[in-house]
């Protein structure tokens, strides 16, 4: 591991690993101990999950705005948009249907 590029890469994986461990340990610990009320715990789980996905993209998949090819970033952003429309739309329709059926 003497090669400078390798040392830099090693640091990237280790930073990513430590951050991912923290971002997993906090929500698991909250569910184990019930330290916060359920609504707050759900919020922390959600925030930790989003942060951890970003950590994985940055430190494990090495996505960044300088060396990653533009097409890959575009595909990623387009996928995020698709997910927002498809998942958000599904929830919208199903919850709307749910509340109307209850009436």
């Amino acid at each position: 591991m003497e090669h400078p590029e390798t040392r830099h890469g090693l640091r990237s994986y280790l930073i990513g690993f430590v951050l991912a461990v923290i971002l997993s340990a906090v929500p698991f610990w909250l569910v184990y101990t019930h330290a916060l009320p359920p609504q707050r715990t759900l919020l922390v789980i959600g925030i930790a999950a989003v942060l951890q996905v970003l950590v994985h993209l940055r430190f494990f998949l090495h996505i960044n705005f300088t060396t990653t090819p533009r097409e890959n970033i575009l595909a990623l952003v387009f996928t995020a948009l698709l997910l927002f429309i498809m998942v958000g739309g599904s929830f919208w329709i199903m919850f709307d249907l749910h509340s109307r059926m209850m009436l």
Partner: protein
Amino acid sequence: MSVAHMSEHEREEAETHEQRALGFWLYLMGDAVIFALLFATYAIMIPGTAGGPTGKQLFELDNAAIETVLLLVSSMTFGFASLQVKAGNRGAVLAWLAITFLLGTAFVFLEVREFSGMIAQGAGPDRSGFLSAFFTLVGTHGVHVTMGLIWIVILGAQVALKGLTMPVASRLHRLGLFWHFLDIAWVGIFSIVYLPGLL
């Protein structure tokens, strides 16, 4: 190696590698759409237990925590294998791939044990809409990990037989994208299925 020192042939190979990495990235984005819709289906089906067991009665937090650790460590060990590919260290690549394989196998073992335990107590995918969605989502991820394990064995054999040639290194790069992607999908699974289910 700088571009100026590359022969015509090597430059062509590097270009092919870039194109294939993009193609594989597009496949992964499609896979992300599949997972996202399975997540949405699952979230909508959570109340649909049809009088059967709920997640709180079925899920085990310890099991999910161990699976999380196994997959996260395996993601890092695959990263170490990728670094050794760059360093041209064939033996170390094989060692890290073997460790990654063992961690992934332990993950699949825990998941299969969880599934068979649930089916044995009558909480299989046919019990309720909730359980159908659960088995589809988590099972799809498990099948992906199993495919990744087969892929590790195949590429491990190629590293052993052919060495770290440019095509083999290029394939290892794509397997790495796949393996790290599966860990991201797992973050979604424990954050949407297990933790809220046991809250």
